[in-house]
């Protein structure tokens, strides 16, 4: 398989000319490309983005792939996602911190998987003119939308595709200043108030990663 069949779906010769016209017009008048241009999303083959949405949802949310494999809409900016092209118009979405790919079940439910399954984890990316994008499961043709925070995970009411705004990552928030943490107060009732005597097995740092 390849993108030949997929590409065939995009054949709409009627739209050719207006688009060409726009391109030519842009070239002739040399308009500066505004920063809001969706084209600027494509800084490289791999985009580090947050998927932000305020569409349909009552509150603003960021798509977050959690370490336990659940996918939620987080109010605060969640860890970055890595959007990588698989083939034209089709991307994979990887939660960088949790190393989980965003995948979709046939019923439309989202989950984070440690392994990349091309069927479940490929999304077609449609760019809307207002800068928002819409994502569809490549295999199931289902729209990617966040589970409603109130309803149970699997309850997917009829709702239209949810539009996401891929936001460039903010500079990482400075972690807490590495000041000296207040040490545990000594256990003054103990003959070992500073808890010096410990278990016999220290963990090896090599095993930490």
């Amino acid at each position: 398989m390849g993108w030949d069949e997929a590409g065939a779906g995009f054949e709409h010769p009627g739209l050719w000319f207006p688009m060409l016209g726009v391109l030519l017009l842009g070239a002739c008048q040399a308009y500066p490309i505004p920063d809001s241009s969706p084209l600027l999303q494509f800084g490289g083959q791999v985009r580090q983005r947050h998927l932000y949405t305020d569409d349909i949802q009552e509150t603003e949310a960021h798509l977050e792939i959690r370490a336990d494999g659940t996918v939620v809409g987080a109010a605060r900016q969640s860890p970055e996602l890595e959007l990588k092209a698989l083939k034209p118009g089709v991307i994979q979405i990887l939660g960088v911190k949790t190393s989980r790919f965003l995948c979709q079940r046939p019923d439309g439910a989202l989950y984070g998987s440690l392994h990349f399954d091309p069927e479940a984890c490929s999304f077609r990316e449609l760019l809307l003119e207002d800068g928002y994008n819409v994502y569809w499961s490549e295999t199931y043709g289902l729209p990617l939308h966040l589970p409603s925070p109130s309803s149970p995970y699997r309850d997917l009411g009829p709702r239209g595709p949810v539009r996401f705004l891929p936001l460039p990552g903010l500079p990482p928030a400075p972690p807490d200043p590495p000041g000296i943490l207040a040490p545990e107060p000594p256990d003054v009732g103990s003959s070992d108030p500073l808890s010096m005597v410990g278990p016999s097995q220290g963990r090896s740092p090599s095993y930490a990663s």
Partner: protein
Amino acid sequence: RAAGTMSRRGPRGSVVLAALVVLRAVAGLSGDGRAVWSKAPGSGPVNESQLFLYGTFPKDFLWGAGTGAFQVEGGAEGDGRGPSIWDRFARTRLGSGGGAGGGSDSDSYAFLEKDLSALDFLGVSFYHFSISWPRLFPDGEARAANARGVRFYNALLDALARRGVQPVATLFHWDLPLALQRRYGGWRNASLVGLFNDYATFCFRAFGDRVKYWLTIHNPYLVAWHGYGTGAHAPGEAAGAAAVYAAGHNLLKAHSKVWHNYNINFRPHQKGWLSITLGSHWIEPNRSENMMDIVKCQQSMVSVLGWFAHPIHGEGDYPEEMKKKLLSILPLFSEAEKSEMRGTADFFAFSFGPNNFKPLNTMAKMGQNVSLNLREVLNWIKLEYDNPRILIAENGWFTDSHVKTEDTTAIYMMKNFLNQVLQAIRLDEIQVFGYTAWSLLDGFEWQDAYTTRRGLFYVDFNSKQKERIPKSSAHYYKQIIRENGFTLKESTPDVQGQFPCDFSWGVTESVLKPEAVASSPQFSDPHLYVWNATGNRLLHRVEGVRLKTRPAQCTDFVSIKKQLEMLARMKVTHYRFALDWASVLPTGDLSTVNRQALRYYRCVVSEGLKLSISPMVTLYHPTHAHLGLPTPLLHSGGWLNPSTAQAFEAYAGLCFRELGDLVKLWITINEPNRLSDAYSRSGNDTYRAAHHLLLAHARAWRLYDRRFRPAQRGAVSLALHADWAEPANPFAASHRRAAERLLQFELAWFAEPLFGSGDYPPAARAHLAARARRGLAGAAPPRFSEAERRLVRGAADFCALNHFTTRFVLHEQPRGGRPDSDRDVRFLQDVTRLRSPSRLAVVPWGARRLLRWVRHNYGDVDVYITANGIDDPALEDDRLRKYYVEKYIQEALKAYLIDKVKIKGYYSSIQFYNKVISNSGFPSENSSPRCTQTQRNKEWHCLLIPCQKRKFWKAKNLQHIPLKKGHKRVLS
């Protein structure tokens, strides 16, 4: 205040100054001690002023040990001694005959010579003891002294004089004659002031010719607070706040009266000094730099130490904070009394020990955190009381009563306290002139009776002869007195020198997850697309146009470039990383080989080689999160299944074949000696898993030796977790054995079969056998068959050690339970040592001892330190790590130059914080393969700021690297 006086010289400045001084005197608010908490939190983890201080105490520093009469003398009713309030309290409240002739005490009255021998053993310069008031005056009134009591103290003083040991005598260490309690109600009654002065006068007259240091009262705070407030001490009254502060008032006045008495009547000819021992806790704010919390800490200190110290060492009156809070409860000092009170101490005698910390619920903590930081409380005293000369009249901690002579925790408590005193003297310029280790002997521990021990010398209370047996802490204290401090013995001075030219400087990484898909289709898709930006937002292929594509390249893997760029900036010569077995062989056998993964790893290797970064490749690197085995192998029992070793051999063979032309250093398994943690359900599992790991390695090594070495000429080993072990208690043979035992179980378990006999270490086997004889663990290590022994023995080309820290090992009484209890060890954290947030101790000299141990046991084997590092939470300036790496490399250099250990490489470990590499770097030698520089050992490179551009030297063997077609270098 300083700014006001300094800004302008001349009359006006003086007026301001005078006004401030008056204001301060009137308000009585010194409060300078608050600065102790306000100071900026230590500047980083490797702050010289916080590190353990090697150095000596002032030349004339006084070293002593202390006892309280009631705690050790015994012989209560005998020889004319009257009962004290503590005799009654112990009998009625504690159900103990403590000190009251019940026979369960140290009986110093009878065994004075043994105490003197104990003092001789330590080599102290003074002995701090207390005189028993009821032994001299059975009913408390100084009329006719008990001659036998006088004779006892004369004998003690004369014996001390013969030994050149100064007496430091306390007049009242809590054993008030019971008669005075009955007749007057004890210290609540002001009559005690005069009675105490009469008793003191007798003591000055009788003993003052030989005593140059007098202390009137030991810790009046505890007498008043627990004697009359909580009832935890004799006389055991819970009589309310008024009684507490009345008792305190009388104690203060008694002291003041005695000081004036001595000052006028005795000092002129006896020429001694007199003070009162004040005790305290220490406290630290919940939230550092929080003003409210700091104020509460100040209140806490003022209400305990300030209560007695302000009148005596300050302005002659109670602290303003107490007066405001307690109002009429606090007795008043008249102006005359204030001036009589003020300055009635010739030095500051300070007590810091467990009694001021218990019981915890009666302490004035004000919601803050208690602390054992002696250095800070000394700083507080310095600031509050104008930098007085300080005698530490009591310091130490207790052990549980079952601890006999191996009081290991007491050693480290003493080490910690004493080093803080040394820091206070040397770094904070505090005038501490003497130190009293408390106590000389085990004895009666007040409200704890005999459930805790505080002696440097152990006494079996039930024995007849009451021998004083030196504990480990006595040996330790003796050593400190002899050296007059802490001299640097663990580590020799730094050396200058260099490692050999072919030394490899590396960075160790854990498993590299292969990138599954080369990053972009743009190079493989020959079509051209246009984007319908205004229409349906779709991409449309331009028909009839075909672009030229190019074959797959290493540059397709974006992560490799990043990784190698950083390595190049670090100027390392070697890069150690691990393959992901489960990715390469998802089914566990060769039926499915993930070629993409292998191609990725080959790219990492080949791209690195172009930058002169040679690979050291680990085949299998398990972690806590992932055992790292292909799933089918995991499901069939993992390392408990012998066939896993065969599967590993096949996997190793594949890797050797695919990558061996480029990889010359192989590590089969990373830390197999710690993987047994994952198989700790039973002792048998632990040893069986280890056995199969060892065989897996040996099979892989044999395969390489037979099939690949002739062509590839590389070297193969396994990397062992190799922390050094030191006895926690250097004076206990059992701890020395425990440290060696840990090494035998942890390191020699794998090293001995490979580099030694081909069998598990006999010492460890013997230990297990001994345990089995005692009916403890049922597990026995597997036996090697003759074939296995031949397979294993010698199956390593070098010794690879992952060294992170040194463990201080305690011997633990054998017990059953978990398999790692086979070793009968526990660890101790030496709190005086620099350590990381994850409590890894920074002990550089441990690395050298480890290397020497390896050489001693396994001969002239090539050694690689394949991982070494520490966690440092710093984002940018990771000074802890820099300090660590510099010190550890220095010790490795000593091992190479002095001990002739054949160290071939050093690999700094970065797996704690992958980020570190982008924030900061590791020092590395200027690692020119040509080795042209003569002095290169002292060059350290900070990579916080991108250092000068790396110079590229073509690797000598670059032309021999057969690169696959289309591979391009990542960096231009």
